[in-house]
């Protein structure tokens, strides 16, 4: 049951590649006081930028909703789609 205490969020960024996506997203997460646990980034089919970050919000200074809204707004500025979803949604679907 110790998993319950964790507050891990998966941030996914999808869209056209451009300079500064990782930096912008990482800055928002750092400003939120959330810790980046893992990053995986690839360019799919030679042009689609895809990045998945696992972040821990246990000691974050802003709420999940605020972080989500800020990321979405940044996504609009950068012309990419940024989603934040609680880790459980993926665990539940893909792990028994």
């Amino acid at each position, binding site marked *: 049951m110790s998993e319950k205490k964790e507050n891990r969020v998966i941030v996914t960024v999808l869209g056209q590649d451009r300079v500064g996506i990782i930096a912008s997203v990482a800055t928002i997460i750092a400003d939120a006081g959330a810790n980046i646990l893992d990053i995986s980034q690839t360019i799919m089919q030679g042009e689609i930028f895809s990045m998945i970050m*696992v972040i821990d919000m246990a000691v974050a200074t802003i709420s999940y909703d605020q972080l989500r809204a800020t990321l979405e707004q940044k996504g609009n500025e950068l012309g990419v789609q940024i*989603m*934040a979803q609680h880790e*459980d949604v993926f665990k*539940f679907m*893909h792990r028994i």
Partner: protein
Amino acid sequence: MPLSITTQEILETIRMVQMENLDIRTITMGISLRDCCRTDAKATAQAIYDKVTRTAKNLVPVGEEIERRYGIPIINKRISVTPIALVAESMGLEGYTIVARALDEAAKEVGVNFIGGYSALVHKGMTPGDKALIDSLPEALSTTERVCASVNVATTKAGINMDAVALMGRVVKAAAKASADRDGLACAKLVVFCNVPEDNPFMAGAFHGIGEPECVINVGVSGPGVVLNAVRKDPHCDFGTLASAIKHTAFKITRMGELVGRAASESLGVPFGIVDLSLAPTPAIGDSVADILEAMGLERCGTHGTTAALAMLNDAVKKGGAMASSYVGGLSGAFIPVSEDAGMIAAVEAGALTLDKLEAMTCVCSVGLDMIAVPGDTPAETLSAIIADEAAIGMINRKTTAVRVIPVPGKKVGDHVEFGGLLGHAPVMPVHNFSSSAFIARGGRIPAPLQALNN
């Protein structure tokens, strides 16, 4: 700390939601109203309003919070209540309408789009209260916006109450007439059942059964689009492989329902009832059960082979889904509502799908002849006979069946009806013109069937 989930898995989930219309169709809160019975209609209506608004106060905010947390859309938040005929038994005809309005107001107050349970269970016979509720349906459904009604007219153990079947034909007709200005919309909120489940979260047939707790959370998942994609992936595989692919997909879809159900139950402090495994289509392109059947290799839904395809789909969805949830219940089968499924509409318009084929399809899936527009001049006895046929299928096959037909006032075969939103739009379909009236006029009860000698 390593990623516990692979990139492919994360992207698969996101693709299901973003591109294949995966969503949670409904979180439905079941509320018992058995303690709301008072000595007069107004006091009862007030007690119902107070209890529903108090109990479901947080339903919509909690649902929205869960949507944000998991990034999964929850399309509807709804309420089901104790069959009103049990609560308002002594109120008389006028009293029922007052209660219907109270339910409507309560639904508006808490922000749910439908409230189900304006219902009566009359499979063996009718009490005066049941009769009053049924008589009140045309007015109750045409003067309220969000109230959904259902009447159970048959069970495998009791047989078919043909008096109720005859009455419901007339009531469906009257409900269409009372809402003629909206193309008979009241009929879209009225379901006539055989073997009705007590924990179904889907409208319009949801109610909070008598064996249910004080309050409960039931979840209905969706996902025809996700299954469609899985079927399309390998167009030439054999049925064993295909069934396996559908099972895997159904498992994943249902896990989302389980997650959301548990989260809602915890946040609301209400016990988690069931996940309903039904594949529920929407009018959105790519969210169609008919498309899945066509992807299996049928030129059009409704042609020969459709029943077999649907049987296989339905069973595979159940097998995958049942493994994914602790408690499965409700209707749990593929829905084939014509007006709510773009592929079904197209199949009707192409002349491939008829009422008779739809009836055959209901033998192997949930839930029945659903959201079908028929000509406005269809006689009440013919509607009753359609109900009787469906009830017979349910009774003999020990399954739920239902009829939700709309005899659209003033419309003929070939005309088109627009119901709007999730209810979609439908071409008016022909019914048989030969009369069933002498059959329906007999009345009485079709006896319960043998449970042995199964052929």
